[in-house]
């Protein structure tokens, strides 16, 4: 058809919804809807161009339809933006920083014999860990924004816990435990049941929520279970070192996976969408 307005509409919609994993199904479904409506009008004697125009007018403008597919249960838009993409890059950085923190902990431990937690190693390990937690927090922030849940109380609580823990992390290494337990649990609760279409992107954040309390518990157990020698502080450094290594490696996997997902999504400009007029249902 010379003036295939429906084809043009569907083509633009496909580009705008490219961030959805089920974009092909959505576009096929909408194309069928529009063609059926247009066919009914053609059967009533309406000319092709007018039939397409009438059909598209009844379906709704592109901004409205795109926003209706992007609106989360919170009323915010759940779609990739430049900000969520930047958070994705932060996730990739977090993955590297967690690996650097793990390496510094491991290599220092080997070099220092029975006293792995020495000042020299701490001066390398602590900045890496702080930076890893900061970038992980940024990734979480982007993740919450991606699913339209950035301004929920549970999301703010999760981020607050992680942010505050960073402040006490530098002078007190054991503060890794509190960031793992409540931060991980809060993130898990905040994300529970609200991922929707974005689940494939943020599923690794759930992994972060599950493993964090587990590793925190392991670190606590390291003080009780007799693994390795006892240092001058009464701690068992090899047990806590093993727990931290596990934590850092799983963190690296989770943040890198989430980071890749967020970073590779083509950003959508939300200013072109009319939020508030599409919230039907």
């Amino acid at each position, binding site marked *: 058809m010379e003036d295939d307005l429906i084809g043009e509409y569907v083509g633009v919609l496909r580009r705008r919804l490219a961030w959805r994993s089920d974009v092909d199904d*959505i576009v096929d*479904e909408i*194309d*069928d809807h529009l063609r059926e409506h247009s066919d009914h009008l053609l059967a009533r004697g309406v000319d092709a161009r007018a039939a397409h125009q009438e059909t598209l007018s009844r379906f*709704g403008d592109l901004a*409205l*339809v795109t926003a209706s*597919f992007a609106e989360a249960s919170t009323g915010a838009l759940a779609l990739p933006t430049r900000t969520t993409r930047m958070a994705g890059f932060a996730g990739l950085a977090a993955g590297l920083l967690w690996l650097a923190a793990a390496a510094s902990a491991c290599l220092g431990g080997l070099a220092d014999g029975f006293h792995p937690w020495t000042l020299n190693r701490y001066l390398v390990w602590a900045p890496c860990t702080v930076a890893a937690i900061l970038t992980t927090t940024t990734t979480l922030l982007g993740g919450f924004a991606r699913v339209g849940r950035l301004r929920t109380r549970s999301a703010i609580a999760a981020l607050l816990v992680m942010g505050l823990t960073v402040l006490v992390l530098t002078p007190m290494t054991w503060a890794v435990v509190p960031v793992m337990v409540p931060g991980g649990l809060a993130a898990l609760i905040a994300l529970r049941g609200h991922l929707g279409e974005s689940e494939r992107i943020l599923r690794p954040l759930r992994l972060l929520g599950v493993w964090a309390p587990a590793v925190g518990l392991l670190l606590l157990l390291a003080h009780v279970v007799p693994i390795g020698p006892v240092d001058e502080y009464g701690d068992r450094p090899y047990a806590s070192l093993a727990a931290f290594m596990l934590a850092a490696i799983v963190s690296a996997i989770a943040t890198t996976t989430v980071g890749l997902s967020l970073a590779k999504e083509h950003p959508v400009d939300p200013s072109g969408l009319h939020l508030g007029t599409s919230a*039907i*249902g």
Partner: protein
Amino acid sequence: MRGDALKGHLDLLVLAVLAPRPLHGYAVIEALRDRSEQAFDLPEGTIYPVLHRLERAGLLASDWEVHGGRRRRVYRLTEDGRRELRAERAAWDDFAAAVALVVRKPQWKTT
């Protein structure tokens, strides 16, 4: 009636029109329009996110068919959807009855 007036009720309306038989999205819109005697006239494109959300919630299921050479997705109520519809209908009946009691024209007694 504008779409805004339907906000909060569309889930119930969609479940209700799908109760007798499975329908595709276009037929859902047509059924809403016909059964409301043309009162419910919303932008058609906004029905699909609602159908998808209800499917994710387990209240609807869908199957793909080929119709006239085009892929067509047909939705049907699940058992959970039927239970939800019964519960929502009962809640709506109570709500509508209570609203009617408040807003209907008072019957003044004459002695």
